[in-house]
């Protein structure tokens, strides 16, 4: 035995034995999971960058495409719903109104749709190397946030263009609703990506659900229009959808000309409750994910 060998051997002797792969335990594993993910934050950054770079790699316009899609949607809704169906008559600054909702919704749906597929898409890697698998859904969150930032820039520019730049305390709604959105979308991405490994139907189901929830949130019509049509009880149900609250929060920040319009009361309090529920869900979904991930490699 040479010097290198004995040096390495004695260095290793001082380390405790650890279990290969993810740690067991539903509750005690939480801290360990957080520590593992934290240790892989550099990899998380790399994977996020990979998602972004690979997506538009060979296209001439590149990142511009991630901007063009919501702009096209904006145009469609503005013309079809705003002008032809006449929603713009009831809603001042209709373009800003729609774009505020669309920006939030794009982030939400991108995290959930890509997040659901994230584990299956990375099957090659998961079957070959052990990593805390949470990094895959999380890297989707990262790349979606990047696109969101660009869109947010456009939104702010739009508010300047229409001469109604948001000021003062209305900005407080932005971090609050963004937090609710991220916590919920990440929780869903954890749960759905893990279930999708076992049941591939999930990713198709998610597409449909996202479509339904798009119209169940006040994105292309206003709360004032919707609440007029439904009763008290249905209104509460409608507001129980956290994305409704998030989108109202975004509109509260950016849609300055909507100040005089009808708004649900206690929006900030409702968002606060949604955030707490969301955090609890995030924890539960991560634990379910941790439980299910043990068999990922053989199910993929």
């Amino acid at each position, binding site marked *: 035995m040479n010097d*290198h060998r*004995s040096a390495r051997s004695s260095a290793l002797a001082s380390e405790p034995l650890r279990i*290969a792969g993810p740690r067991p335990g539903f509750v005690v594993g939480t801290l360990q999971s957080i520590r593992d993910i934290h240790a892989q934050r550099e*990899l998380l950054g790399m994977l996020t960058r*990979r998602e972004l770079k690979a997506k538009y*790699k060979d296209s001439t316009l590149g990142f511009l495409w991630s901007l063009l899609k919501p702009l096209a949607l904006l145009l469609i809704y503005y013309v079809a719903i705003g002008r032809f169906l006449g929603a713009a008559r009831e809603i001042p600054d209709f373009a800003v109104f729609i774009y505020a909702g669309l920006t939030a919704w794009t982030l939400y749906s991108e995290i959930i749709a890509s997040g659901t597929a994230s584990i299956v898409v990375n099957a090659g890697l998961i079957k*070959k*190397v052990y990593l805390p698998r949470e990094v895959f859904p999380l890297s989707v969150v990262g790349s979606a946030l990047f696109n969101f930032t660009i869109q947010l820039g456009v939104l702010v520019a739009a508010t300047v263009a229409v001469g109604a730049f948001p000021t003062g305390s209305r900005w407080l709604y932005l971090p609050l609703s963004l937090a609710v959105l991220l916590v919920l979308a990440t929780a869903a991405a954890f749960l759905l990506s893990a279930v999708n490994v076992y049941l591939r139907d999930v990713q198709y189901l998610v597409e449909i659900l996202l479509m339904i929830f798009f119209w169940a949130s006040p994105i292309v019509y206003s709360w004032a229009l919707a609440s007029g049509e439904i009763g008290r009880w249905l209104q509460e149900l409608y507001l129980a959808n956290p994305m409704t609250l998030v989108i109202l929060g975004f509109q509260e920040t950016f849609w300055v000309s909507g100040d005089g319009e009808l708004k649900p009361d206690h929006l900030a309090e409702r968002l606060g409750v949604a955030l707490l529920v969301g955090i609890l869900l995030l924890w539960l979904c991560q634990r379910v994910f941790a439980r299910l991930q043990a068999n990922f490699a053989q199910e993929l």
Partner: protein
Amino acid sequence: MSATTVVKIEKVSKRFIIRKEKSLKERLVNFGRSNLHKDDFWALRDIDLDITSGSTIGLIGANGSGKSTLLKMIGGILQPTSGTVHLRGRLAALLELGAGFHPDLTGRENVYLNASILGLSRAQTDKHFDAIVDFSGIERFIDTQVKFYSSGMYVRLAFAVAVHVDPDILLVDEVLAVGDEPFQRKCMDRIRGFQHEGRTIVLVTHSLDQVAELCDRAVVLEHGAIIADGEPREALRTLRGEFEHTRQEEIAREQEAGQEAGSLPTSKARVEAIRLMGEDGTPVSEISPGQDLRIGLTLQADERVDQPIIGVGIDTPLGQNVFGTNTKLLGRRLDSLSGRKEVEFRLPGLQLGEGAYTVHGAIAADSGAELHRLIEGAQFTVTTGGGSVGFVWTQAEFAGSPT
């Protein structure tokens, strides 16, 4: 000092459930009866294994014996159904080269990504980057997307990244036989360097020569159980015996099937014994270089074999063939064989290097399909006056500077 245990595997079993349905509809329709649609398969049963620091261990076995499953379990990719796997130190898995490569990214980007997957920080990758590119030998293409790489270039880059990670335990699955010869030699040198630095290497391979060459311990798996564990020489012998056994079973099955189908019955013939004799016909077990060797085979044919091919060979104890010949190579056609028969090969002036050797005999049908092979049918040793190593002997001398 005693070596530290770096991998501790205790009572590990792994069961795979093979489901025959996947979609929601199938599951709902078959709900409650779902046990009918499951198949159990035990890939590993009650495996106990301790691997000590600094050792190079080869996991070998036939296809489906569970060796890759065991390796994945050490890597934490699969979870044992029961039992535990414990580790010490930093682990890197060379399971499939380039598993983490993204085809749309350039070589440079992929190096960073893959290094990060294998556990290297960005700063460490920066430090090693030039060495990695240098090792891979594809500097010119490092900023090209890897989808345009040839498979050789792909593998070179992936291997280069993997060997620059600083693992305490390196898991290697069937990847050493990549690239062209010079690159392979480079890889082998790197692995030897790893050994010298006291890293632990766990190797899964079908190349038994590689095991003989690199490993100081070999574990043979069969149907999910360890059937041999120890010196590579012993383990390889067990495995080769096992392979021969499987072959015999297959031949027997084919013969049965052939008879049932009414097709041409495959002949049954065996090499029963091998005798080694000197020039004068007396049995020998020890020879010197340059002596003649006569190899006598006792053949037994239960059914008539037309124009059989009979061969003999000399192997090292690790199973590497150093010499072989047969009647076809010698241009001799034999008549039919039936019943018991003695044949003999003569190897005049055999110049083998010092060491122990084994002799095998084989009989094949005229199509070339082997009917039976008797491995290690006889042993002999060669003693020389020293002065050289290797399988070939010659009276070498040092001539100084020729004038």
